[in-house]
């Protein structure tokens, strides 16, 4: 927009003619040009129509637009009436002041809009709102009240129309979509509220039965209010809102993501606790509230740490559950309940994880640009939630350092020589070997420790205090390893110089996962293979081990934040200021959480109430970490992609850890023999037999044949799974192919954008060249005007109008060209569509006026078809041409024959318009004396070409 207005301001005629300014102003509201026109061409078409309609509607503006040049012409013609007799023009002029060419704006407008409604509602409604509302928001940034008043009616009409259409589209939606759409409107609240009330009103009207409408509205209002109160209630229940805000304000989103993750895990555990407690423990407790504990076992206090002893006989572990059918109000089969609860829980966990992983993958990884890009750092990286003054200062510093680094990065990258590269490679190799070796070593040492422990413990019903304390050795060592080894890994990381922080973090994460994987793998092997051989109630023993691990993990997490964060802060602030205050290591902390959760998942079968411990643990951990964070840490220096890290964490949680836990539990359930004397599955050869027994029972009952059938033909049949796998594979292959196709499409589209950009640059260059040659002409036309002004006012008016007309046309054309360029380059920016429409409307108005003028010319042709007029006209035209193309003579000519000249230019205009008309009507010879020579003139040719281009352009979009 700016460039155009600048162009316009150079030209005094532009200022004299207020209509142009109306043009500029007007389209801001009547513009319906959809910036995403390619998505829905039908919409674009109607947009063009609307322009027509709106031109008709602004009769106020249009009249003055016409009056200006014609007024000039009238005065002009008084001077040279005998040479160019066009007396009728004045009457024509009066005519058209009233209703000469008014298109009935409303009817056309509405028809076109309604016609296109059904097809394009869903596709581009939001887009349009966006375009429209952007426009209406920037409608009067620099409004001139006088101008405003001038077009006020038109604007109001237009806005009402716009609104009605919007309302219509909204009414067509369902209530839920409607509210969502209203909320997403980028307008002010007052407008939204207005639209909402309109929508409600017309939704009511559209119902046939008034009572029914009232009723249904009340119902929908009721449900909406219910929904809102549920949302409110949920917000009230939302934990730690204030703390979250504080952390986000001080440390930014990336650190906050750790706490969000922690909270998510906590919710997960609350859910699993509720499921397990509700379906397994409560029925048992209702049936038999006292645990059957051997008389010589009592609570000694150490159980809280070891989980053994007294706890061994409670509902904490597998062993505490009975295998009976609980007879009460309803018969409750404990075996089935245990089996199905655990299975269902695992399945639900898997689904929830998969779902959150997939959705976060979709939003965070698809099409993500590299994090180091300057554009991203500048425009997207600022964290608006940071409100702490120190944090803001630090962030600004960090950003500055990062920007400086990224500027020097390119130079550095090129300087790397082969020897440096080799050295780097050596460092990588060394640290990977070392870290993998450490992980394997830890696994091996745990294995030997397990064997040692196996020798020390006995399968007695109760252990001595010392025996019980000895069991703490294994979890202690495991947790110590988990605490210390990652510190070594972080140390290695300091020596390796990764090119990006992301690689560094991923390397760290992979090593930690390897470590924990190897430790857990060895432990699982021990539990699966050694423990069942030795212990009579082995599930409970495994459960106890897991309990101990969970507890020790918690203790070491506390120690870790004490040593890792508090001590290094003390060190950093007092002893070694070089180290500085530690940063909060998100990756390490999240991995600790993942590990803790994995323990809980593995333990779910052996110790159904383990989630309760986990809830307590996470709850305390949240406060602990929060305190440690606010007192000891500084925000991370590099703000990586928090969202992507989050996705990675969920993926990690799912893939090695959850899948590992599930496979372990599944192995236990399908392959291992449950202990003979305790637990719900005692006496069975494996856990899954429970289902077979149940099915066999069901087969005896007549009503449940279909369950048996499903079991036999679906669950047990290999063929079914074979087919399922085959179908899944085929579907995956198809989707993979689609993805490949999309990738190609993306490449092509990107190429297209680049090409369009080039086109645009080319067009702009052409335009600039044109402009270079134009100003001379404009100047030249200006100079004689000054002279004529001194001589006679009439002539000056004529000259002015001439230049008005010419410049308007030129102006419109320039804008159009530019618009074409801009429009070509793919997604047209929403804000700029204002100018698009203004160019279009200008062109339209120019054309309208041309048509109108053309009518007048016909009149004059028929009435005064004397050859002298035509010779005059052609002479004048030639003179005009001379003026237009010959600069030296032009000024003189103009000076001498100012009157004739201006009329000549007018004639040229008329001729051009006629030519245009001819062009449109396929050269049907309407008038025998048509001044065809006009067509031969170079100027007219040019104009014609332009017109055609414009038409084509209009058709094209």
């Amino acid at each position: 927009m700016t460039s155009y207005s600048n162009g316009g301001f150079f030209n005094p005629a532009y200022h004299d003619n207020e209509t142009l300014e109306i043009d500029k102003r007007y389209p801001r509201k009547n513009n319906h040009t959809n910036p995403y026109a390619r998505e829905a061409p039908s919409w674009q078409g109607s947009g063009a129509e609307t322009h027509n309609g709106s031109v008709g509607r602004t009769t106020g503006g249009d009249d003055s637009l016409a009056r200006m040049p014609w007024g000039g012409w009238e005065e002009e013609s008084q001077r040279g009436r005998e040479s160019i007799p066009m007396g009728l023009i004045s009457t024509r002029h009066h005519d058209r002041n009233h209703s000469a060419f008014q298109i009935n704006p409303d009817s056309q407008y509405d028809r076109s809009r309604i016609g296109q409604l059904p097809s394009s509602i869903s596709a581009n409604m939001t887009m349009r709102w966006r375009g429209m509302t952007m426009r209406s928001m920037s409608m009067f940034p620099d409004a001139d009240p006088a101008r405003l008043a001038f077009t006020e009616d038109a604007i109001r009409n237009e806005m009402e129309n716009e609104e009605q259409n919007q309302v219509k589209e909204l009414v067509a939606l369902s209530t839920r979509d409607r509210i969502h759409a209203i909320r997403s409107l980028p307008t002010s609240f007052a407008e939204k509220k207005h639209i909402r009330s309109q929508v409600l009103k017309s939704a009511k009207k559209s119902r046939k039965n008034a009572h029914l409408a009232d009723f249904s509205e009340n119902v929908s209002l009721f449900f909406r209010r219910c929904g809102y109160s549920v949302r409110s209630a949920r917000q009230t229940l939302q934990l730690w809102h204030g703390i979250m805000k504080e952390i986000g304000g001080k440390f930014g989103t990336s650190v906050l993501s750790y706490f969000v993750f922690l909270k998510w895990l906590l919710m997960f555990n609350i859910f699993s606790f509720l499921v397990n407690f509700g379906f397994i423990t409560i029925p048992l407790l209702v049936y038999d509230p006292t645990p059957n504990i051997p008389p010589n076992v009592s609570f000694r206090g150490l159980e809280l740490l070891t989980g053994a002893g007294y706890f061994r006989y409670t509902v904490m572990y597998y062993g505490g559950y009975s295998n009976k059918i609980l007879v009460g109000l309803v018969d409750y089969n404990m075996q089935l309940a245990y089996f199905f609860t655990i299975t269902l829980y695992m399945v639900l966990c898997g689904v929830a994880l998969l779902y959150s992983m997939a959705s976060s993958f979709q939003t965070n990884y698809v099409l993500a640009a590299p994090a180091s890009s300057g554009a991203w750092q500048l425009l997207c990286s600022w964290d608006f939630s940071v409100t702490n003054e120190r944090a803001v200062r630090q962030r600004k510093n960090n950003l500055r350092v990062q920007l400086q680094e990224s500027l020097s990065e390119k130079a550095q990258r090129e300087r790397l020589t082969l020897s440096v590269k080799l050295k780097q490679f050596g460092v990588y190799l060394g640290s990977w070997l070392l870290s993998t070796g450490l992980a394997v070593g830890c696994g091996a040492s745990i294995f030997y420790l397990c064997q040692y422990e196996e020798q020390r413990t006995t399968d007695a019903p109760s252990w001595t205090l010392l025996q019980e304390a000895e069991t703490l050795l294994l979890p202690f060592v495991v947790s110590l390893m988990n605490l210390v080894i990652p510190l070594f890994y972080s140390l290695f990381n300091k020596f390796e110089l990764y090119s990006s922080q992301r690689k560094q973090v991923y390397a760290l994460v992979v090593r930690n996962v390897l470590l924990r994987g190897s430790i857990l793998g060895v432990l699982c092997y021990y539990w699966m293979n050694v423990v069942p051989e030795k212990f009579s109630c082995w599930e409970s023993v495994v459960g106890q081990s897991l309990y101990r691990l969970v507890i020790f993990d918690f203790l070491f997490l506390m120690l870790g934040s004490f040593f890792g964060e508090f001590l290094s802060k003390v060190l950093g602030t007092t002893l070694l200021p070089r180290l500085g205050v530690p940063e909060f290591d998100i990756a390490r902390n999240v991995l600790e959480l993942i590990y803790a959760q994995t323990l809980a998942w593995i333990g779910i079968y052996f110790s159904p109430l383990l989630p309760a411990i986990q809830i307590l643990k996470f709850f305390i951990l949240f406060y602990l970490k929060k305190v440690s964070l606010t007192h000891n840490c500084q925000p991370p220096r590099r703000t990586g992609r928090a969202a992507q890290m989050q996705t990675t964490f969920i993926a990690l949680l799912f893939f090695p850890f959850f899948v590992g836990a599930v496979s372990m539990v599944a192995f236990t359930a399908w392959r291992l023999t449950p202990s003979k004397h305790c637990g719900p599955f005692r006496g069975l050869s494996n856990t899954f037999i429970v289902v077979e027994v149940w099915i066999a029972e069901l087969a005896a009952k007549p009503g449940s044949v279909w369950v048996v059938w499903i079991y036999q033909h679906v669950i047990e049949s290999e063929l079914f799974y074979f087919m399922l796998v085959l179908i899944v594979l085929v579907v995956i292959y198809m989707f993979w192919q689609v993805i490949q196709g999309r990738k190609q499409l993306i490449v092509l589209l990107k190429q297209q954008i680049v090409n369009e950009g080039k086109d645009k640059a080319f067009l702009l260059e052409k335009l600039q060249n044109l402009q270079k040659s134009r100003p001379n002409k404009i100047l030249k036309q200006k100079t004689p005007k000054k002279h004529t002004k001194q001589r006679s006012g009439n002539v000056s008016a004529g000259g002015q109008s001439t230049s008005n007309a010419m410049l308007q046309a030129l102006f419109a054309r320039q804008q159009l060209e530019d618009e074409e360029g801009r429009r070509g380059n793919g997604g047209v920016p929403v804000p700029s569509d204002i100018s698009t429409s203004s160019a279009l409307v200008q062109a339209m108005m120019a054309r309208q006026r041309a048509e109108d003028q053309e009518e007048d010319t016909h009149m004059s042709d028929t009435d005064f078809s004397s050859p002298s007029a035509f010779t005059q006209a052609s002479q004048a035209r030639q003179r005009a041409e001379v003026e237009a193309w010959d600069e030296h003579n032009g000024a003189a000519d103009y000076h001498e024959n100012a009157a004739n000249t201006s009329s000549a230019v007018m004639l040229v205009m008329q001729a051009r318009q006629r030519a245009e008309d001819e062009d449109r009507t396929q050269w049907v010879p309407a008038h025998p004396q048509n001044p065809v020579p006009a067509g031969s003139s170079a100027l007219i040719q040019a104009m014609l070409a332009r017109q055609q281009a414009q038409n084509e352009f209009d058709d094209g979009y």
Partner: protein
Amino acid sequence: MGNKQTIFTDEQLDAYQDCTFFTRKEILRLHARYHELAPHLVPMDYTNDPECKLPLALIVNMPELNENPFRSRIVESFSEDGMGNLSFNEFVDMFSVLSEMAPRELKAIYAFKIYDFNVDNYLCKEDLEKTLNKLTKEELTPEEVELVCEKTIEEADLDGDHKLSFADFENMISRAPDFLSTFHIRI
């Protein structure tokens, strides 16, 4: 709870809930925040939509905005007069767009407005320089500023007009997944 009825009518609250991303409770909380900015100006009774606007200077003093380098731009972008005077409705609008629930497209539109300092509907170099200076405390040398801005335009400008249109900006936003969480002010 008795307080609730005197500030807004149920219909008003319904309208707020339908038109913004806030619940009734949050609207009331927002009103409390708005009220506390200027207790003598803002009425406690909003049942008949009183005309009341708070100037920019008061609003940017909120702790949520006070340290934000773009605080004035944020408030200006949401004020109807462009000068930063906010009525309560505009105040709600502002935090609605900046809330967690607001969709990416909506956020992008307003983020673009905020970064568009000279309101010409393009992010030109001048805008980017201003942004950069706000983000780095003006500690970069002019050459560095120049380089960073050029690099930014080069990376994000799809159509090669050496300024960023809304389409360019939106495209960039769509590739920056963190934007949703970072363009977010908790209230």
